[in-house]
């Protein structure tokens, strides 16, 4: 279960990155206006990563609650 979550997290984080890498406009966008978009992308990755992590944590807590209720 834990391993599956980690894989999911990796996929969710790398997915958009890999997709945009094939886009020819990507490089130009990233280098425009003093490369500021890289900073935005980095912040977005951190926020996205932490939110996905929180959702996963949330689901685990939910399962734990369910098990407490069952017994």
């Amino acid at each position, binding site marked *: 279960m*834990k391993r599956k979550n980690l894989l999911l997290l990796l996929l969710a984080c790398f997915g958009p990155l890999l997709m945009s*890498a094939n886009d020819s406009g990507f490089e130009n966008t990233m280098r425009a206006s*003093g490369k500021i978009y890289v*900073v935005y992308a980095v912040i977005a990755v951190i926020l996205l990563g932490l939110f996905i992590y929180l959702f996963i944590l949330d689901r685990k807590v939910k399962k*734990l609650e369910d098990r407490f209720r069952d017994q």
Partner: protein
Amino acid sequence: MKRNWWKWLALLLLLYATTGGLLTPLSPGISAVTPDIVPAGKAFTLDATGYNTRLKANEATLTAWADNGERQICATAVRVKDDAHLAIDFPAFGNDKVKAYTIYLNNKADGTFFLLNGLTMNSDTTGVASVTKTSCKPAASTAAKQDFHALPYRELLYETIRNLFFHVPMWFTMILLFTISLVASIRYLRNFDPEYDRRATQAINAGIIFGILGLITGSLWARVAWNTWWTNDVKLNGAAITMLTYLAYVVLRRSIDEEQKRARIAAVFNVFAYVLMLVFVGILPRMTDTLHPGNGGNPAFGQYDLDNTMRPVFYSAVLGWMLVGVWIYFLRLRMHRLHDKLPVA
């Protein structure tokens, strides 16, 4: 509320670090000059493009010169087109051993800024006499200083220097969490209390997420600063090996069914993993040359890597993210304390 003060502190610190990190302007710089190769022995005009400069408003105080380390050559005339564009007339350059010249500009508002080795003399300078040294560089004591608070302007990095406030704290947080885990593991090996095993595991689980975020953000930054997603740099490979070691810790735990055995083996493995991390992230990169700042011949906290304007923002970001990391660790720990209280299904 009283118990949660440090969580609100984390929020405040991160709000400060994010707004400060994004809104502080970059220092003025020269982003390009054309042409960048000129023949010696002939006067020429250089078109320069400024970044964040206010050339038009400070035209009266503008001076320009070129410097190759041996001699300075003063511009004969400077024609400002707008705040970011100007033409510089230079006299004929002489026959010099060093062909690369750094172009300097100084004005009252922007201070002194330059394009390092922005201009190269044509290598064939036979028959060209050397020119005498002239001086137009304002003396350090009287030179106009930049009149606003700004982040350093670095070629190649440009605005991405702000990533320092986001990418680096991820690694600092990871190292903090792994250190917490190390302490817990050592305590586990002293008294075999399952609570310490729980702490060690959950600190690592929380640390791994920050390591992964550090890798992804670093890769994204490298793509634009170094033109590659990944390069075989000592620091980068060291970080990757560290992450693999700690992922191996997670896998190792899952492969041992017997609880006490699992806890003991994991604790010993954790001590080794920490030593490996110190070697691969802390020591080896400092012993060789690497692209990554903060290492051999390229020290962190140097004058340019961590300018004084960046320190308050950087340290707030580090402390803020560390608190978030510790918060996640506490949540995981509390969750697993409850989990371990459940009767085995």
